[in-house]
């Protein structure tokens, strides 16, 4: 999986690092002073992740937990994300990580204690102000489960959130790697959320991820064990068979999982920053994604025209409601269902 592993000298001897290194006995390891001096310091081609993916192990410094942008999660409650990792082993053609970092290499931050301390501090701050729930999302810059079998992070987070019922953790993923998760007892505030696209788009654009049917099987397995589940139908991509494909996705989903087993579903239409779109053009020049009806929007982002994206969102939402999902459990991600103008 990795062609080389870089480890910060300060953490090299820690059990966490040694456990990870044991899994990659044949991979060359290089000790470095500070990963910030190497990672992201040069523009490394994104697709080198296919044959020269490197792993960095170190500690996150600076701000460990950040507030999410508006319209990120269920509204009315504070949302934060924490930074435990950079980059992803998967290769989704629309992924914003293409234009976010200057390197596709994976970084794992192993100072979980510092992250946990910050999560506890923020939760206490909000609860003492009278709020009943604070959200923490993982997977903003990586997939939350894809490497969970090597990081050992899940049992640690589970322990923290078990003792912090006012805080809810969301693990965002496209992975089918739930072995670690299945060993943990379900907690109401320990939610695994899966990103799903239609079968057609999943095959075409979500390279190297678990196929849609596998993801649904995994969702069912977790839900039946009592683990809370969130879903992200994001990014929704338009095609001439949009309605049929979405119906197929909803049928597949609800033939394995009951709508009652799903805590929430977020809906988001595909969008790109200018830089990410440029990267998609460079990395996947033949992708049919580039033949979509995008235009440069008011905020310079590349997306469908507003009437189109709102129509798509309304359509998917009404199809979900028709299939038995409660309306209050569906929210729109990064899109104001507004009355602007």
């Amino acid at each position, binding site marked *: 999986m990795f062609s080389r592993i*870089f480890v910060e000298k300060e953490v090299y001897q820690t059990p966490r690092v040694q456990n990870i290194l044991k899994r990659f006995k044949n991979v060359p390891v290089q000790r470095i002073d500070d990963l910030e001096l190497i990672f992201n310091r*040069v523009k*490394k081609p994104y697709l080198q992740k296919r044959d020269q993916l490197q792993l960095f192990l170190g500690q996150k410094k600076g701000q460990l937990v950040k507030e999410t942008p508006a319209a990120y999660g269920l509204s009315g409650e504070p949302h934060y994300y924490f930074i435990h990792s950079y980059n992803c082993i998967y290769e989704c053609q629309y992924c914003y990580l293409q234009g976010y970092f200057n390197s596709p290499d994976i970084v794992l931050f192993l100072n979980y204690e510092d992250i946990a301390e910050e999560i506890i501090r923020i939760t206490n701050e909000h609860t003492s102000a009278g709020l009943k729930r604070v959200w923490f999302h993982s997977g903003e810059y990586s997939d939350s489960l894809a490497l969970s079998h090597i990081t050992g992070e899940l049992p640690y987070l589970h322990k923290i959130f078990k003792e912090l019922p006012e805080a809810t953790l969301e693990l965002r993923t496209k992975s089918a790697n739930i072995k670690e998760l299945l060993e943990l007892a379900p907690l109401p505030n320990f939610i695994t959320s899966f990103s799903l696209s239609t079968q057609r788009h999943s095959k075409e654009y979500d390279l190297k991820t678990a196929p849609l049917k596998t993801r649904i099987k995994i969702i069912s397995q977790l839900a039946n064990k009592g683990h809370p589940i969130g879903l992200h139908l994001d990014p929704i991509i338009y095609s001439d068979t949009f309605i049929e494909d979405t119906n197929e996705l909803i049928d597949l989903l609800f033939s394995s999982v009951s709508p009652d087993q799903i805590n929430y579903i977020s809906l988001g239409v595909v969008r790109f920053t200018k830089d990410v779109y440029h990267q998609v053009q460079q990395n996947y020049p033949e992708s049919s994604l580039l033949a979509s009806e995008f235009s440069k929007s*008011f905020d310079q982002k590349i997306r469908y025209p507003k*009437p*189109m994206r709102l129509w798509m969102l*309304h359509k998917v939402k009404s199809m979900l409601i028709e299939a038995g999902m409660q309306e209050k459990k569906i929210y729109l991600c990064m899109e104001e269902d507004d009355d602007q103008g």
Partner: protein
Amino acid sequence: MNTWPHTQTQDPTMPIVLCFAHRAEARTLLRAWDFKAFPDDLGPWADVFVAKRQDQKIYALITGEGVGQAQGKLSLLLGQLWPNVPVIINYGVAAGLRDDVEQKKLYSVKTVYAQKHPNEMSFNSFQLEGERDLVSAADRVLDRNACEYLSAFAPIADRELWGICLAAQQVKAPVQAYKWISDLPYKHETQEICQRVKEQSEEFGHSFSAHFQTWTQQFLNNPTTTTTTTTQDQREENDPLGLLDHLDTHFSTTQKRQYLGLIKALTRKDENLLGHFEKQALTLVQQNKNLGQRPKNITPEIIQIGQDLLSPFEKRLRQKLEQMASPLSKAGAQVSFDPLKEKAQFTLKANIQHPRHLEQLKIGLDNFSYENFEALMKGRDDV
């Protein structure tokens, strides 16, 4: 990050510039190919040699060591050759920084990075078509300390490729680089690098010469190579509908670009769409011809046909908006919508010169439903 034009797309008669940092690296190849010194009257070109093979000129440039030297000397030669753009090949010895490259082996270079100062890298990179990454070092890499930092970025270090890429970038010349690993300073620190390299000069000299022999055979004799100028084949590839060369069409430069962009996008989306495009466009061209109209009159419509095939939702939205606005248009008012379609608003412009015009406008406004318009713009109505 800069990506180079691929060598396969180059003209097999285009000149070649071989770049070496040192004479010792070039000697065997220069002899084998019977290179002659560049004519004396060009003074500053004392480090350039030239050979000819069939219709192709091959230049060999001794750049001297260091990024600045390489960039400066190559820029001068490229200026001299302009407007001919050569393919540039860099051969040279280099240091192996990690155990994933072997000593005395030749590697092609993939991504090129550069070290600015001892602990600082240049952010940008150049991407070539090769197998291993390389970093052009600020100084000679002679010991483990220097190796340790650079090896985090690439397994090979040289002293000139970055400068060669910078110069080549100015004229968009394709670059290839092949590096022979002369020493492994992370294993054997040495200050006697010149002596060690000298001792190996016969080996790497033969390696470069043999590689170039094979390379030229592939490059010159490969019948699949095409030229950089647009051939008939390429025109057909870019414009399979042949509308650009059609006698009854006319495209301005901007329209040509739009049209070719549409062809590309439609091909990506669904190749069957090209057939629909062709049919509709040719019908339009024929109708226009029958009416005796000028070919350029219908070019915007041809482009619109392509755009509608590419963006069916937008087409339906546009048609629906036109339909909604028709009571106002019929009343003589001009209706314009937000071009980005982000806001559910429109601008109405009417020229009132008579009470009758006002009456017509009132009727038009009565027949226009803002609620329906808003529902459409906010995605609540089917398009």
